[in-house]
């Protein structure tokens, strides 16, 4: 082992750099419910919550159950002149599959509204499970958590729900529309996704994976 270059003396593990503007601080853990904010660019750096681990796991489990159920059950049904059709989330994703060159969109849509949200939830369970149980982190937990964070902008289930609302209005004149059970499941999902992002303190997770 070679000694680490002593750039500024103090222990680097106690420092935190703002990812947005590069300002460096000596990290002081705020109390639960409090937030540490970058003095330069106002980015929230640390925002711990009590028992956030359990809550996040509970939400992640709920997300997996909801997405899987909502994918298979019909979420909207229409009726025109005695003919009716019901559509599940999977049908919506695959709507592009039959349309020739647009078919790759079917894969992309399925990924954005079903696979990525589920994958993120599974990764969160994998990473936080051992932490909550006071066990050492699972193998490759750091890589798993980084992947989950990188996928965050690509998880679009909540946008899909708002899309449903617009689609409904568009065809309201044309046909009678009924909500299926999956629609309500997806609506609940939107709330859960928002809760999940609000509870997640990345700094605390990384700290807990350090051991």
């Amino acid at each position: 082992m070679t000694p680490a270059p002593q750039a500024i003396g103090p222990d680097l593990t106690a420092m935190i750099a703002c990812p947005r503007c590069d300002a460096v601080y000596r990290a002081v853990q705020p109390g639960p419910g409090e937030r540490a904010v970058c003095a330069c660019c106002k980015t929230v750096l640390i925002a711990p919550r009590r028992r956030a681990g359990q809550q996040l796991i509970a939400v992640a489990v709920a997300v997996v159950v909801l997405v899987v159920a909502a994918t298979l059950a019909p979420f909207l049904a229409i009726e025109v002149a005695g003919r009716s059709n019901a559509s599940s989330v999977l049908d919506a994703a695959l709507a592009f599959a039959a349309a020739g060159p647009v078919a790759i969109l079917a894969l992309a849509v399925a990924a954005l509204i079903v696979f990525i949200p589920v994958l993120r939830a599974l990764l969160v369970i994998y990473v936080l499970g051992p932490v909550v149980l006071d066990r050492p982190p699972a193998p490759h937990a750091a890589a798993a958590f980084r992947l989950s964070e990188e996928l965050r902008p690509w998880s679009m289930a909540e946008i899909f729900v708002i899309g449903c609302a617009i689609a409904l209005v568009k065809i309201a004149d044309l046909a009678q529309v009924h909500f299926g059970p999956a629609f309500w499941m997806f609506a609940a999902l939107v709330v859960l996704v928002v809760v999940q992002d609000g509870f997640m303190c990345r700094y605390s997770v990384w700290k807990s994976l350090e051991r």
Partner: protein
Amino acid sequence: MEIAGTLRTAREMGLVACTSCTRVWPAGTERCGRCGHRLHTRAPLALQRVWAWWLVGVIAYVPANLYPMLSTRTLVASQEATIIGGAVDLARHGNWGIALVILTASVAIPLGKFLAIAMLALGVRHGSALTGSRRQQLYQVVEYIGRWSMIDVFVVAILASLVQLGAVASVSPGPASLFFALSVIFTMLSAQSFDSRLIWDAEREGRRA
């Protein structure tokens, strides 16, 4: 939180910060020992990447507006609608609210995003009339709002899967849906390639000069 000395950047202290997990390492470290992310004092070629994705995003946005987004067949007629045409139709039927939502999500927001990213990238090179905090806010808005443009693609997917009533009425997606989705994805990648630390570098240099 305690400021380490006066407010200094990791680069000034001879350190390199991990943008993924906020840990700091001695300058020259290649990978973050905590999360495994690649470390760069500033993202290399960040602006070139921003411009490259930006350009393909803009290019894809053109056919997205020229080709039909949806084609609708009913017993009496069949019609194809572009993004703007569809919104105009809705407005004509009195659905002003939804027409406005569609115009905002598929026209105003994409155009605004192109402009905002171009402004941020140009601001790094040539300075900007906006303060660092304003530009930081603008960047966060672009990052947050970018995903929501996908809504139009999802609407097409929902309509095309739902409205399949044989001869009575059927909806199928047009080529514009693919181009539009690509444009949104490229613009998201463009925004993600931008290293917001560059905003603050220029700001700090300006203060010192």
